[in-house]
């Protein structure tokens, strides 16, 4: 399916400017829980991006795909797989209707991230509508481009607060020839040590995770390289490994069945997170998932004293700020940027920080 509804979306934003109303941008609504809960006041309307969808261009030998923001992620992944390629940052879907726009606006990346890169690393260009209703293009479809500031990457993870994504160009990569996962039973301490050693080695790694007293080592690449690394790493080869990684990425793994708030801690590889709760560790030790009732301050401190930051990923409490507070001057820069891109505060106001 394909349809270009730029004009309609632009009209909606202009109307919101005139009516002084606010817009909540919604793609597949699969990640509605992520970020602050924004006010559902009478002056707030939903703006659906799913009407604006379709792959605009894709040439496998150029390693680039351009698609409208409302395109289902699934559609893109199927198309890439038919050409033996993939989105290298393994975006989580969190629901069957997830769109490309939502993946880029949240900027979330899966287990491959430490070894291949994040969502923002693969964004080459964007077309957006600003909060003034202006259509603009930044970056492009080429791998290298330093003309002008990198507005394309600025959009990644901005949760739609700086502009409505219309189109995104993304660098794609060939699927690895072979992929296997080794599973090793070890303590958390030992697992962290092994992760660090492997992380500094030239083994063909594509994920390192730890949960339930087990270290999971995913190896990807040429068949010969994977086979030889498999011997070196040891442990047992996990059957249905794709399932395991999918369950982690999509949070359908039993670990995520809990009523307690879910925290996501992004920390340095060398971090030592001292908590009673059993974490799910991903990204070679640089990402911790924690279910915890501890206070926001306590969890933020756990992360910040290690040089990282915590996000309150899922919680029943609608009032909490989800992202770690910013230093005053950095916050000022955020406000300045918001004022320029969305001076009337129309787009997803409050979703990232309550005053943005």
């Amino acid at each position, binding site marked *: 399916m394909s349809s270009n509804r730029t004009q309609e979306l632009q009209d909606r934003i202009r109307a919101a400017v005139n009516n002084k109303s606010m817009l909540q941008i919604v793609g597949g609504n699969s990640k509605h829980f992520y970020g602050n809960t924004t006010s559902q006041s009478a002056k707030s309307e939903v703006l659906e991006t799913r009407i604006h969808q379709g792959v605009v261009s894709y*040439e496998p*030998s*150029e390693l*680039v795909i351009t698609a409208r923001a409302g395109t289902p992620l699934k559609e893109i992944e199927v198309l890439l797989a038919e050409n*033996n390629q993939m989105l290298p940052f393994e975006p989580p879907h969190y629901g069957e209707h997830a769109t490309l726009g939502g993946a880029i606006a949240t*900027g979330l990346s899966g287990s491959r*991230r430490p070894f291949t890169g*994040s969502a923002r*690393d693969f964004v080459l260009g964007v077309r957006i509508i*600003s909060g003034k209703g*202006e259509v*603009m293009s930044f970056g*492009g*479809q*080429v*791998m*290298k*481009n*330093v*003309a*002008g*500031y*990198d*507005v394309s*990457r*600025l959009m*990644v993870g901005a949760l739609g607060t*700086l502009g409505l994504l219309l189109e995104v160009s993304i660098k794609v*990569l060939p699927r690895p*020839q072979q992929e296997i996962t080794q599973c090793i039973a070890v303590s958390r301490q030992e697992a962290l040590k092994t992760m*660090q050693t492997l992380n*500094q080695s*030239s083994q*063909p790694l594509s994920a390192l995770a730890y949960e339930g007293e087990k270290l999971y080592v995913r190896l990807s*690449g*040429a068949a*010969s*390289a994977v*086979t*030889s690394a498999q011997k070196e790493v040891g442990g047992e080869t996990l059957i249905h490994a794709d399932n395991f990684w999918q369950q982690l990425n999509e949070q359908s793994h039993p670990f995520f069945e809990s009523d307690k708030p879910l925290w996501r801690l*992004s920390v*340095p*590889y*060398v971090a030592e997170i001292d908590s009673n709760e059993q974490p799910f560790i991903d*990204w070679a030790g*640089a990402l911790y998932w924690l279910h915890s009732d501890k206070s926001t301050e306590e969890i933020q401190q756990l992360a910040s004293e290690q*040089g*990282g*930051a915590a996000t309150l990923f899922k919680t029943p409490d609608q009032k909490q700020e989800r*992202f770690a507070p910013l*230093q005053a001057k*950095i916050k000022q*820069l*955020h406000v*300045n*940027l918001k*004022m*320029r*891109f969305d001076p009337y505060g129309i787009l997803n106001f409050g979703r990232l*920080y309550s005053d943005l």
Partner: protein
Amino acid sequence: MTSATKANRESLRKQLHQVLPKTSILETEEETHPYECDGLTAYQQKPWIVVLPETIEQVQNILILCYNEGVPVVARGAGTGLSGGALPLANGVLLSLAKFNSILNINPANRSAVVQPGVRNLAISQAAEEFNLYYAPDPSSQIACTIGGNVAENAGGVHCLKYGLTVHNILQLKIVTMDGELISIGSQALDTPGYDLLALMTGSEGMLGVIVEVTVKLLPRPEQAQVILAAFDNVVKAGEAVGAIIAEGIIPAGLEMMDNPAIRAAEDYAHADYPVDAEAILLCELDGSHEEVNEQITLVENLLTKKGAVSLRTSCNEAERLKIWLGRKSAFPAVGRISPDYYCMDGTIPRKQLPFILKKISELSAEYGLLVANVFHAGDGNLHPLILYDANIKGELERTEEFGGKILELCVEAGGTITGEHGVGKEKIDQMCVQFKSLELQIFHDIKHSFDPQELLNPGKAVPSLHRCAELGGMHVHDGLLSHPELERF
């Protein structure tokens, strides 16, 4: 723009002497002369004064003083930039980061290093070698250029196809904003909350803040690396071979192309045993584990032969590998030897447009009567046509610039960009009007003002004023459309 007067500068001079030791201030003709240009020597301008701070506090003090007096500041690393980004201002301060040259910390377990901005690119990899780690982006200027300059330009290198550009290989920056505040952007972790200011700073050409510390990511050295040198009797065939390798699902560590004039110049200079009769060569490097490299070398060799390579040479050891790369990495100075002057362009195009662009460049070369040697980061479609000229011949520089400008416009037409890695600087400011519409340029100015409302950092670079574009608009009518119709014409 700045309205600083002579009196402001006099007052600033006195205050600078109060916050800096005498040896950190250069004022005489003789002392400031080395700073009058960067790697783009066609543009020259002596700075009013040069300061060389040694501490972050001194940088803060300098910026506060300049801010108060309204005097503009240009930051400078090694001055190897090729777009006039570090070109000084006659009424401004040139702030050299040369004394910030320490590697502060290498943390192998975190695969990162904390360095000062004046540290040379290559020095990082050398220091990390004992941990079997390295810093991946490797501009050809890596023995001289600084990491601060690399961040400011989002520098690339021959290994960026597989390992990414500067923006993919840094974690954290400390910057001083124009009002003297020290802030930290990014973090030691992979994700940082808030907007991606790290991406915004990378490639911002010294317009948003002065970088005073950089945390880079380090990578494990690959077990094995080998390079194949393939010769072709036709440039288009070489271009097609590039696409074929990628289509095969292989991402080489580097994939570079040179045409005959570039091959000859490089061979004369570096004696790398390049085939001087070839119309084009491809250098394709594969790295990874022994097994992977062995497997892929055979695959790529066969593919290149099938795509019409007339000869192949594959490095058997590290010395051979480095020798093959030496030719490529010294291509610019090599061309500098065969011509009194050369002008290096930096457009990027979708790979498939390579034959189209090459044909157009050779037509323009004939039209302008100026020779061109072509060096490409072929894997990512980044072209470096080197236009040979003689600045002593009246009018030749102007014709060269016009020719270069046309190449960049062709790149935009082909779906690409006017600069892949060298930046806009002073040089490509007019071509920005071709690539962007007023709305986008206005947002760039807005971003600048979010960081530096008085426009005191590197003013006049990177982003053209809308009026400048409007004036040029008369000359750049595309498809019968003016590019900036909403603005008044003069």
